[in-house]
């Protein structure tokens, strides 16, 4: 049989007919259309049971309640917790994006030991046993040398059982050098101790106030408990509350306020005293309070009347005298006036005098512990552990002076001065710690003059970081003993920033630890047991959870159910009993402030001929500027007037741009006494001529590729200014110059 062309064609036609009569083409068509809709890179969320866990966010000091939505064991979304007393069901951008910290690439997944030079990024993975042994050995050696005060510990918070455990560890070890944070919150607490004698926290009852006078506080830019502030802001029209924002630039808060009062940067304290001048001279103040419950009013009055006349204050602040008088009148005659302080987000403490001036203004109108006023909350007293037994070495070590000088006669009201701690080391004026423990804080990014902080860190022979992330400070460590993140651990969150009732939030694990990390509390307890002397005896708990349950006692059950504990019916003491100063009165000038508290303006560093402009940092709710950097979701919403690719924008007035022949989006060189960087120009009418504003929270060198290398860290360019009255960092900006790139 010959196969010719015809038979081949016949075979083909038969094949085609047969194919058409078979399901092959029709099925393939269907399948290929499905295939084109199911690309392998399109994620398909796993199915499972929906669950919710109530917890408390610890990404900022706000203490918001969160509800984590889970599918089976996997957390998939962070939502606001309905009915939560602080956040009222809301959640901020950082909180929503919080899950990215859980799975993100910057997590430290196992204990690490440095093998290369510091900052080189060469690590070797070690076991927990080896990591703890090495730390314990170093600690034992230091103590055996009779030098326990050579140990220093830096922590991100001062409240709750975790810092309490760390402080206890430091005490029984024999070191006074527990260095907590120093932000606007700590400045408010210092002012409260100085003026009211109250050892506690300052609450601002914004929900009930009807006239809020904000001295540069970024109520919508992350100040205090951000979600609580959003809630208050968004429904203030219903309560007919007026918000006046005093701000050196048109911040988001200023733009959304009822009135924006532009002011020369760094002079907010002067304006507060200028307003006080008008209130006193016109006798608008609450005489019932001032006459019967305050002390030092006469000298305060004299000082204010002589040094802070409206004309003089107008000259310093740039706010016209008639506006100062008008603000004073409105503030004094409002039903429930409230003055708020803490510049921007309140990351920096500022001069003590600024906080004292605002507290004095509140006192003048008699709103201390009044509805819609300042609430003085005693330090939460649920942590009442028996005093630890101290051995000889510890008893001697603990009496040594602190490296940062906090609590000394000169800086009596400061608890911790992290900036001063590093500045003193760098300047060779303080002993260098032999061992430094760092937890929940990232001083190499958040403190002013990062170069000096780096130089100081370089001198410390042994640094142990407990960071969950490879942040800037962890990169410089010798050992990293990674902590769980907030979604994996138990923790109590007490005294949230600016809240007005005794409150403890409960952070609890919503997911099993993803990596080979350990709870800091467990590590401290374990480490205590490995040290010689009496140290182990101070930690009589099996683990941190046992310690937390034991400490919270009867509150535990309710907190597990509700997610928090709050004393709803807390009876605020009245004016005759609330002050615990020596006189039992509110001291306008502070009780034992060493330097003149009313020396209110700290001049920006640098000389005006070389540096004609002034650089000020500004905070934005879209940029996390604390120890934790922006997660990728938040990087996606940073505006293109803030960051484009790796270039950061600075805001300047078009007039300044004309003077320096700069145009919008152009590259420029920004120089300050601390350094020089390349920036892009953003022309902004909302900033006064002569100022340059730079966003905070950018310029990370650590974390992941989504964040590192983007923009500039403003703290590289600004140096700290030591406040004579408190030791706090009083810097609010620095002199600068701009030139074409």
């Amino acid at each position, binding site marked *: *049989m010959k196969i010719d062309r015809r038979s*081949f064609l016949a075979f083909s036609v*038969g094949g*085609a007919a047969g194919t058409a009569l078979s*399901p092959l083409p029709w099925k393939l068509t269907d399948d290929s259309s499905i295939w084109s809709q199911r690309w392998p890179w399109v994620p*398909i969320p796993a199915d499972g049971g*929906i669950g919710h866990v109530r917890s408390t966010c610890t990404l900022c000091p706000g203490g918001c309640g969160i509800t984590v939505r889970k599918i089976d064991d996997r957390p998939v979304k962070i939502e606001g917790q309905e009915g939560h007393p602080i956040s009222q069901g809301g959640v901020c951008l950082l909180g929503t994006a919080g899950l990215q910290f859980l799975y993100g690439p910057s997590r430290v997944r196992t204990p690490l030991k440095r093998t290369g030079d510091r900052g080189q990024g060469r690590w070797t993975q070690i076991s927990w046993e080896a990591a703890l042994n090495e730390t314990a050995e170093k600690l034992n050696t230091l103590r055996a040398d009779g030098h326990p005060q050579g140990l220093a510990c830096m922590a991100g918070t001062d409240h709750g059982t975790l810092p309490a455990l760390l402080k206890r560890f430091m005490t029984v070890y024999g070191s006074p050098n527990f260095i907590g944070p120093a932000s606007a919150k700590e400045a408010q607490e210092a002012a409260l101790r100085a003026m009211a004698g109250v050892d506690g926290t300052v609450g601002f009852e914004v929900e009930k106030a009807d006239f809020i006078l904000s001295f540069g506080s970024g109520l919508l830019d992350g100040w205090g408990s951000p979600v609580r502030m959003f809630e208050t802001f968004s429904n203030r029209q219903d309560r007919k509350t007026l918000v006046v924002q005093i701000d050196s630039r048109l911040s988001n808060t200023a733009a959304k306020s009822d009135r924006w009062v532009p002011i020369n940067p760094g002079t907010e304290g002067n304006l507060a005293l200028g307003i006080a001048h008008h209130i006193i001279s016109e006798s608008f103040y609450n005489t019932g309070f001032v006459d019967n419950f305050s002390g030092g009013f006469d000298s305060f009055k004299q000082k204010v009347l002589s040094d802070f006349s409206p004309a003089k204050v107008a000259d310093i602040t740039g706010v016209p005298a008639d506006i100062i008088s008008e603000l004073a009148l409105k503030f004094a005659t409002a039903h429930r006036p409230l003055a708020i302080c803490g510049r921007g987000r309140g990351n920096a403490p500022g001069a003590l005098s600024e906080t004292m001036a605002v507290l004095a203004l509140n006192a003048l109108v008699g709103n201390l512990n009044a509805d819609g006023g300042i609430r003085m909350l005693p330090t939460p007293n649920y942590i009442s552990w028996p005093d630890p037994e101290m051995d000889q070495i510890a008893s001697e070590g603990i009496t040594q002076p602190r490296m940062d000088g906090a609590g000394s006669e000169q800086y009596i009201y400061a608890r911790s001065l992290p900036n001063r701690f590093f500045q003193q080391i760098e300047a060779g004026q303080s002993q260098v710690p032999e061992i430094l423990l760092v937890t929940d804080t990232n001083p190499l990014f958040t403190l002013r003059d990062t170069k000096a902080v780096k130089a100081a860190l370089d001198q410390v022979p042994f640094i142990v970081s407990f960071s969950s992330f490879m942040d800037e400070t962890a990169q410089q460590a010798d050992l990293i003993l990674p902590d769980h993140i907030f979604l994996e651990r138990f923790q109590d969150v007490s005294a949230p920033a600016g809240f007005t009732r005794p409150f403890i939030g409960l952070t609890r694990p919503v997911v099993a630890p993803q990596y080979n990390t350990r709870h800091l509390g467990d590590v401290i307890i374990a480490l205590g047991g490995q040290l010689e002397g009496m140290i182990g005896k101070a930690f009589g708990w099996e683990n941190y959870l046992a310690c937390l349950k034991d400490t919270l006692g009867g509150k535990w059950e309710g907190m597990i159910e509700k997610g928090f504990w709050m004393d709803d019916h807390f009876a605020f003491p009245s004016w005759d009993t609330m002050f615990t100063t020596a006189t039992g009165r509110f001291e306008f000038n502070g009780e034992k402030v060493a330097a003149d508290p009313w020396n209110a303006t700290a001049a920006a560093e640098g000389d005006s001929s070389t540096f004609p402009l002034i650089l000020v940092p500004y905070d934005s709710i879209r940029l996390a500027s604390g120890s934790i950097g922006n997660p990728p979701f938040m990087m996606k919403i940073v505006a293109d007037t803030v960051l484009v690719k790796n270039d950061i924008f600075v805001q300047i007035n078009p007039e300044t741009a004309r003077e320096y022949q700069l145009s919008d989006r152009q590259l420029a060189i920004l120089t300050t006494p601390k350094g020089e960087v390349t920036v892009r120009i953003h022309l902004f009418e909302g900033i006064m001529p002569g100022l340059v504003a730079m966003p905070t929270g950018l310029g990370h060198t650590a974390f992941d590729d989504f964040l590192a290398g983007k923009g500039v860290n403003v703290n590289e360019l600004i140096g700290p200014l030591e406040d004579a009255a408190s030791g706090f960092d009083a810097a609010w900006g620095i002199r600068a110059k701009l030139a074409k790139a």
Partner: protein
Amino acid sequence: MSNPSDTTQPEKSGSPAATPETESNGGAVVILFFIFGLAASMVLGWVIFPTLLYSKKKQPVDFNHVLHVAEVENGCQSCHFLREDGTFSGRPTLESCVTCHESVLGVTEEEAHFVSQYVEKNREVPWLVYSEQPDCVFFSHAAHIINAKMDCVTCHGHIGESEHLPFYEENRITGYSRNIWGKNIAGIARNTWDRMKMDACADCHIRENVRQSSIQTEKGGCFVCHK
């Protein structure tokens, strides 16, 4: 067949000079080749294609439905149940197995394998789900079981009466289970459970006069299932 010896002028010309006999031969040949082609492609399409299209996967653990249904009190719903929030837990988790299988029960190899590999290691069994619908389909078991009072067999067939788990056949192109298209490669369904493609859903919805628009969006057609 074309044999040169049968033709008078074999070398001079081609087909125009062919005799009627050779023409009829040639026609038969063409038809034969046509039938060959037809048959070959039919075999390819109906027999070979399905075996090439699907890969056969064994379930991680064999499971005897008959044995378990006899042991449990609540039939299918003992292991495949609606959660309190109305979502459906189709794939039993280890938690429900461990109630009885904390240690090895019986002597089968599969049981020993299950306990050592999953129970002791606390690993979920990665069951392959025959009726897994793609992510773009919104399907509510509650609407069908509670509202429409349908039973499991209507859609899932008699799997509850099996003593061994059948192979999971995965479409190599789409990644879907073969049960979605149906065992019949032509997509012909004899029973309601033979096919779970969109047309099977739509036919029943039309036949049963189910609401033809989405409750949430009030949009008709696609939006009933594709939210």
